[in-house]
């Protein structure tokens, strides 16, 4: 394993279920947690649909993977961003999205919800700050 610490940005632009990209992207995040990099997730365009609450896949026979997002705090993911314009174009607000809690096991510092709605300028800045962008 490498000692390098890189800033990873996972950039999610696809809706869930219609295609598998959202789910297999999340699998990379989960596996990637073992590598101790600095990880950020960004949801943009139809990617914002990945975080909606109340997903019920019983009728389409597919696995509901949305509960996994709620556990991301346990995988050392501390920063999750959602693009404001993408939400607005889709008639959504943060209330439609899951809340993801985070706790620092050492300091017991807690954050109730690490999902942050950001504007376009901040999206650009976050892309710029990262070392590697995984795009799904």
């Amino acid at each position, binding site marked *: 394993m490498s000692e390098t610490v890189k800033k990873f940005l996972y950039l999610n632009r696809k809706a869930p*279920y*219609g*295609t*598998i990209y959202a789910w297999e992207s999340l699998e990379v995040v989960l596996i990637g947690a073992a590598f101790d990099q600095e990880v950020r997730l960004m949801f943009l365009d139809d990617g914002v649909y990945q975080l909606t609450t109340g997903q019920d896949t019983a009728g*389409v*026979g*597919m*696995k509901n993977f949305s509960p996994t997002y709620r556990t991301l705090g346990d995988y050392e993911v501390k920063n999750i961003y959602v693009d404001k314009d993408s939400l607005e174009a889709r008639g959504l607000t943060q209330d439609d999205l899951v809340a993801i809690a985070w706790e620092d096991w050492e300091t017991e510092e807690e954050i109730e919800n690490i999902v942050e709605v950001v504007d376009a300028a901040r999206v650009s800045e976050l892309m710029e700050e990262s070392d590697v962008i995984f795009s799904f």
Partner: protein
Amino acid sequence: MKFAIQINEGPYQHQASDSAYFFTKAALEQGHEVFRVFFYHDGVNNGTRLTTPPQDDRNIVERWAELADQYKIQSVTKDENGNETVQTELVVCVAAAQRRGIVDEGEAKRNGKDATNIHPKFRISGLGQLVEAAIQADRLVVFGD
């Protein structure tokens, strides 16, 4: 009513095969006939017997095979002596299959391949089977990306 179904995408990557499955099942449950399910483009990848999806996920390939069994999505032909041959009508396009590596015994022999991966309930056949299905069926319903 006679339906023909066309599926253009492989399993898991796109919802096409899932949607087609539930549509086909609902049509059969209503007493409609599903004359043929034709797998085209990457859809041919639905015909491999080698998939092992996670235990908590659906098995798309087996689900098609079971539906075809249960509702007899198959055709019966008689030879001169009156002997019947029953064929499954989960049909994988041969040209699309060759590009993508879906192989049955005959294809393996013809193309010098050392293995096959077709599921026993699927069969490989020509693109003419799609055209014929469109002619024979009352409705052609296409599922894709």
